[in-house]
């Protein structure tokens, strides 16, 4: 499939957005769930551009890197998208032409775009008569899920903030302990307190890691899925559009038949052939669009089922990663305190 075993290319952030643009346009009428790219961030990028070396810039860069990686992984694990020449080109080609139409994905972000599209669909006057409630039910589920994910994301945000607070407070405590150790006149106690200050510094580093764990493993998982669920909503909208197109074609066909009837009655044989040709054309379009609609419907069903399976796998593997990281943290914590215990006992 690819030219070499391993290869690397350089890409800009806008290239990733460009890839999404291309895929959306192409897969527009297919009903695929196209993985959404990470959001643009004016704030984050400005800091990085200015060259600020502070921890939040470093965190931003890492966050973006990880998000882009997940984005690409989701694309290549999709059997249809992997076949797409644009995807291959993105991964292989040395130089990519500069992506231009990424304005739609700027600032306001991906979800706003999806919401706009949904609103347009909702405004369609003809309501669909669902023979099969599967689509309606699923759509409702998807909307509920988005709400739940948002709530979970907010709680995780709060947790991450508290962990960062704990880092800060631990550092301050360590410093105050060091000062106490320095002022102590009893040598054994002074030494133990100074060592305690050092252990607390190590604890601060541990808390930092745990905050990163919460953020990168759980927080980002939830954010990704909020966007993915938006993409799922997007593909339901695609089906609605396909249905709309079919309905529109049917009414056009109806109009053409009425036109033919009028001509027959008005007895204008020269325009009659044109009318008959029109009817034939629209009849085939109606058939085509009906087939398209059915095909999109099947694709949506397939995609949604695939999405749900992937979701379970994704969540499961992230939870395992989270727990493993927590365990490592605990092990290191135990080592620190086991090393300190004899020092504490040696005070007197």
């Amino acid at each position, binding site marked *: 499939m690819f030219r070499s075993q391993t290869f690397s290319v350089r890409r800009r952030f806008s290239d990733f957005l460009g890839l999404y643009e291309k895929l959306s346009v192409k897969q527009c009428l297919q009903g695929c769930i196209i993985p959404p790219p990470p959001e643009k961030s004016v704030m984050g990028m400005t800091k990085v551009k200015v060259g600020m070396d502070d921890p939040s810039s470093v965190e931003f860069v890492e966050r973006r890197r990880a998000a882009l990686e997940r984005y690409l992984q989701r694309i290549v694990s999709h059997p249809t998208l992997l076949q797409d020449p644009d995807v291959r080109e993105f991964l292989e080609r040395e130089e990519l032409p500069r992506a231009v139409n990424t304005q739609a994905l700027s600032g306001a972000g991906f979800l706003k775009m999806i919401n706009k599209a949904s609103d347009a669909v909702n405004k369609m006057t003809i309501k669909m008569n669902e023979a099969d409630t599967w689509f309606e039910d699923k759509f409702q*589920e998807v909307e509920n899920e988005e709400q*739940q994910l948002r*709530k*979970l994301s907010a*709680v*995780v945000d*709060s*947790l991450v903030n*508290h*962990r960062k*607070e*704990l880092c800060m*407070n*631990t550092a*301050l*405590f360590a*410093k*105050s*302990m060091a*000062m*106490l150790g320095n*002022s*102590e*006149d*009893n040598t*054994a*106690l002074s030494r*133990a*307190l100074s060592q*305690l200050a050092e252990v607390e510094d190590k604890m601060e580093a541990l808390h930092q890691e745990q905050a990163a764990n919460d953020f990168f493993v759980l927080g980002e998982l939830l954010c990704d899925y909020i966007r993915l669920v938006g993409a799922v909503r997007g593909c339901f909208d695609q089906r609605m559009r396909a249905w709309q197109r079919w309905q529109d074609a049917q009414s056009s066909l109806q109009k053409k038949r009425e036109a033919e009837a009028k001509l027959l009655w008005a007895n204008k044989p020269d325009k009659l052939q044109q009318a008959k040709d029109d009817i034939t054309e629209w009849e085939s379009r109606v058939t085509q669009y009906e087939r398209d609609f059915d095909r999109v419907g099947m694709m949506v069903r397939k995609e949604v*089922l695939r999405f*749900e*399976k992937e*979701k*379970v796998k994704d*969540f*499961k593997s992230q*939870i*395992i990663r989270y*727990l*493993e990281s*927590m*365990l490592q943290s*605990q*092990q290191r*914590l*135990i080592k620190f*305190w*086991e090393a*300190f*215990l004899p020092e*504490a*006992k040696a*005070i*007197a």
Partner: protein
Amino acid sequence: MMEEVKEGSVLSVQTNGIKVSEVVKDGDSLTFIIISQKLSGTGEYHVARTYDDFDWLQQHLFSQEEVPGIQGIIFPPLPARAQVNPSAKVMKQLGLLALGDWKPYGAALEQFLQQVASHSVLCKNKALEDFLTSTEPPGRQKSKKNILNRLSQAVEGLRKEGHKDVEDFFQNERDLNQALTNCTKVVAEKFLDVVQTEQKISVACGHFSAALQMCVESAEDPDKQDFSRVCKSLSEVFSSMGKHMLSVAENDTDSLGLGLDLDSRYQDAEKEMLFRRTCKLVELEAAQRNAERAKPVKKAAMEEVKKTTETEFNQISVMAKQEIMELKRARVQWFQRALVLWCEKQLVTAKKNTEQLNLHLEKVRALA
């Protein structure tokens, strides 16, 4: 009616057996149940006391003017008054003791009683015996507020505090105490911040667990079931984590937290004592000057005053030196105990958490 204070009263309970077994909330006030073990034979004293009773006890200890060198004693520090719904100001004063549903506060009061009971001079005060053994609450009448405490807060305090000492030992101790008073206060405050953040994390974990539980649905769709199981597992993980953090915060409070709080209050108590002695020194130097400059007619009287003040000062200094040495020794011990206990508790909790995490990990791995 003021209680009579008999000298040479012997405490009839075991020092280490004094326990504050319960803190009872009664509307707006707190009542403390104190159990003491009888020295002779078996049996216990059960008494119920309020903060006012503790205050009464302390006032009696302060007011033992007939005890030579009483001002040289480092009085075991009583924690600040607690309220059921503490104001922000009271919360700040109490610091760590306001946490944990008043259990640490009870422990601090217990420590206070044990310190008084094991003090060679203070344990002889009948007020202590009455406090611990009498079924009726000791006289609630407000005894005259003794000026022995909080002297250094008075306006002239700042001026006298810097007064140069006549003995190196005491000058050094005053300097050291100055440094330690500041350090221990900061350490206790910073530790409290850590504990409170741990509590916040515990609450956040609980919220996350609850929010996840709401994602669990009983549906027939197998895919939905799978996801529900995943959510349920994660919910259980965070429920454990919440409980774990709560344990961590409790460990912190019960061991090192109490130790740091006690240390900080003792530094303050030592500061008060050193200040009393410094004031006496100032008084003595003034008396010496007066005796020197006195006109012949007043000379004898001034000499008397000088001699009395000198005796008092020497008694205070002797007592103070003993007390300081004792505090130094005791401090090292209780720090060691607090640190060892804290360390051991942390290890136990961490190992338990590791077990829990391993169980959860196995469970999640086993999910289809």
